[in-house]
């Protein structure tokens, strides 16, 4: 590995690493607009210029296009470098409208941040600013204000290299250059929100988030999207119990820096009218839904009670259901329903949008294989049941029939299954609890509690713990950390894992069988 020097720090970095990334490894931030780790190098913003030693003496060069090679030296804080950064800021702002008070990017704007870090000059702009097109509605999710743009071309490269839609371009020349759509085109892809994320300034903003909240009020909690089996890593942005947006969180092994628009939209469901907020028994609100459910399970007789594991639910919740059955009614039948429906396949691609819209199919499969004797959808249809307890799975829609004389449902959203259910128990949304999910790659990833559960909801693993207690033996799944450890102790493929070890990027678990390992 080549050895490079960033200021006074000598370090070895992988060959081919560019110097912005190398500096990051050395703990040095090099300011930049156009460079993005998951896009090609454009080298046009000139903000990352650093001093390097050349045969002709010290020269200023852009760090983004400098590949690490043995003996390469860069200095990031010399007077020359500071002067260039200051002048680039001055050039970028001379035609900028400076409309921060009404701009949604305020607070996460690189113009603001870098001006404070590297600019701070007295304005010399005495000339008329160049006017450009404002308030352009360019797609379902995105507004464009060309005057705020710094022409970094990240969005153009995103369209060329990630979505391959080639819909955005730099039009005109000189200081009249502006980003725009080709005539007659609109953004038509499902990754539009990323444009607002990668835009370092307020030119491309999200229609969903515009004018909703100043970003400096928002707290960010690392989580995962549960919109499909991909499990994109996200930040949940929230204030005082209200979630305002999801943004992608970088994980090069899962979603790079991206996420899809349907995934981004999912936060709307958290506090929506379709959310299950109250426990009901036979259609009436009830404070005793769980004891009542326990009574009906006993009344039905263990052989005629079924439990459906939830591919939308966390590993901990499914584990809680398995443990509850094992401890209290070992004769009860357990099922899980796999697969995607036709609508979901239509909304899928080969990139991030998986046809399986369930976040934890792989996790349920793992638990079912470990537990053994878990039936599939056909077995569920064939079973003679008096009562079916369903964990976060709209089985009525997915299987197409009501399946048992009586249903009990633990879930977050109203759907055909809640409509058919005699007992409904509200459970926490993914942003309201700590839990883990196993994605399509076999990567265990953590969701972290960002907000408090709404209404009467509690995390499903706690509701199931309470149900177990009401049946006589609690499965001991109140605490997610301990629950995960309990799973990891007995399930070989999870051996050695714990919450802390999962880190921010999750961990791939061992393949199912040695044969599968060889196939990889």
């Amino acid at each position: 590995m080549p050895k490079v020097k960033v200021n006074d720090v000598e370090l070895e970095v992988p060959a081919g690493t560019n110097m912005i990334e190398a500096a990051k490894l050395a703990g040095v931030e090099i300011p930049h607009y156009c460079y993005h780790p998951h896009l090609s190098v454009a080298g046009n913003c000139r903000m990352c210029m650093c001093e390097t030693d050349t045969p002709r003496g010290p020269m200023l060069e852009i760090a983004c296009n400098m590949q690490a090679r043995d003996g390469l030296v860069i200095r990031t804080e010399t007077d020359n470098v500071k002067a260039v950064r200051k002048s680039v800021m001055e050039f970028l702002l001379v035609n900028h409208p400076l409309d921060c008070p009404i701009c949604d990017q305020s607070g996460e704007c690189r113009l603001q941040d870098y001006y404070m870090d590297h600019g701070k000059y007295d304005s010399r702009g005495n000339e008329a600013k160049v006017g450009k097109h404002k308030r352009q509605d360019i797609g379902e999710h995105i507004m464009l204000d060309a005057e705020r743009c710094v022409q970094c071309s990240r969005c153009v490269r995103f369209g060329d290299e990630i979505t391959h839609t080639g819909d955005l371009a730099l039009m005109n020349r000189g200081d009249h250059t502006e980003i725009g759509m080709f005539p007659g085109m609109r953004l038509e892809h499902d990754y539009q929100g990323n444009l607002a994320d990668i835009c370092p300034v307020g030119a491309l903003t999200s229609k969903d988030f515009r004018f909703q909240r100043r970003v400096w009020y928002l707290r960010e909690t690392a989580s995962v999207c549960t919109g499909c089996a991909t499990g994109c890593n996200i930040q949940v942005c929230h204030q005082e119990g209200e979630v305002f947006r999801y943004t992608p969180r970088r994980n090069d092994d899962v979603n790079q820096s991206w996420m899809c628009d349907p995934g981004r939209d999912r936060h709307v469901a958290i506090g929506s009218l379709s959310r299950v907020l109250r426990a009901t028994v036979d259609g009436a609100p009830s404070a005793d839904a769980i004891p009542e459910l326990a009574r009906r399970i006993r009344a039905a007789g263990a052989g005629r009670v079924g439990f459906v594991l939830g591919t939308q639910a966390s590993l901990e919740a499914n584990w809680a259901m398995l443990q509850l059955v094992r401890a209290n009614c070992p004769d009860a039948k357990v099922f899980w329903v796999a697969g995607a429906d036709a609508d979901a396949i239509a909304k899928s691609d080969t990139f991030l949008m998986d046809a399986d819209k369930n976040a934890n199919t792989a996790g349920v499969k793992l638990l079912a294989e470990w537990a053994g004797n878990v039936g599939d959808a056909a077995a569920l249809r064939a079973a003679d049941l008096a009562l079916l307890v369903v964990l976060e799975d709209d089985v009525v829609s997915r299987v197409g029939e009501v399946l048992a004389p009586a249903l009990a449902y633990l879930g977050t959203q109203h759907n055909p299954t809640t409509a058919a259910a005699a007992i409904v128990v509200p459970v926490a949304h993914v942003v309201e609890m700590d839990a883990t999910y196993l994605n399509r790659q076999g990567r265990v990833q953590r969701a972290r509690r960002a907000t408090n559960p709404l209404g009467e909801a509690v995390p499903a693993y706690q509701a199931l713990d309470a149900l177990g207690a009401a049946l006589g033996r609690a499965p001991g799944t109140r605490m997610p950390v301990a629950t995960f450890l309990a799973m990891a102790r007995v399930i070989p493929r999870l051996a050695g894992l714990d919450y802390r070890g999962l880190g921010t990027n999750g961990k791939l678990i061992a393949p199912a069988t040695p044969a599968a390992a060889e196939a990889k």
Partner: protein
Amino acid sequence: MDFPRILSGNWETPDSHRLTVARSRGVYSRLPKALGMAPADITAVVKDSGLRGRGGAGFPTGMKWTFVPALEKRKGKPVYLLCNADESEPGTFKDRYCLWLDPHLLIEGMIIAARALDVRVGYIYIRGEFRYIARRLDEALAEAYTAGLLGKNILGSGTDFDLYVHVGAGAYICGEETALISSLEGEKGQPKLKPPFPAVEGAWRAPTIVNNVETLAVVPWIIENGAAAYKAIGTEKSPGTKLFSVSGHVRKPGVYEIPLGLPMTTLINEYAGGLLPGRKLKAVIPGGSSVPVMTPAEVELCSMDYESIQTNAGSYLGSGGMIVMDDTTDLVAALTNLLRFYAHESCGQCTPCREGCGWMYQILCRVRDGDATAADLVTLRDLADNIHSKTICFFGASAAMPVQSFLTKFRSEFLDRVQGRGAGAA
């Protein structure tokens, strides 16, 4: 002075652009020899001749040719030869004469270069404003194809070479070689990051050599007469003859072929006929509008070669586009006019050039109109310094150097204007 007119020798012959006339004047007579030579030997002769690129940078042509990777290293990729006929530098109008009056000489030079570089396909990239010349080039290509001088198995030598004319859309920046390549590829004409350099990875990511019209048109003469004969002309480091486009306040503006090293005063006073009666020299831009301006005292010191102009005046020979300005010139207005051009032509890619060129132009408009303060001149100078060499391509420097040099060498004219005591020629 006795020297061969290598480039302009056929210009006075009627119908010199016709194949039959060109052949009668010796064009294509060097082909049999060149096609019989080993490619590496052709490159060696060009390298030994000391020929330097005539587009402006003066980079040694033979050396550039050696940068093309060998066949096994380029993994089967073809090599492209591009003739840069995007002559757009203000004050430069030599290539259009070569193309208009002697297109076959260029074609001959390109065939020889193609032989040297293992090129099968070449393009003449010509600026959009030269559409009428492009039509003449197309006619010349058709004549050459009919005569078996282009296409498969040229003159029975086994060498194949196809040549096309590609008309640009009229952008100054497309004369920059990587922008030219972008434009040829069908992209917006914007320079690309270097490295990789075009000789290694250029058009369609294949090795590409971009040479100026004049450079390629010299090659046949060098093959015919040898490197030593070429080196015998001009100076040691600037061998050969070169075309100069002289414009401005001279009696005989035009294109002149002279041996490099000729005193600048000889070019101005003898070839171009000197200044108009009663006028005094005020300033000279020696090599196209981008190079630093020179004072009359510097003109006296310089000869027309790469080294002399750089050493004695801190300027460049550039493309050989000489603009002569006498004492009736308002230099503030002249610089404002130049910056209007650069503000219009900046491709808009790099921050300093994109925003800075327009800003400098706006300040200069106020200086010209008597609406500026001395502080504006400080800003102007700062902006030029902050653009120079801070951009992907050389355009930034090209826009900055006139500002820097005008402000330094003719400071009083600008100070007079901001103090409201100007000559008021604007």
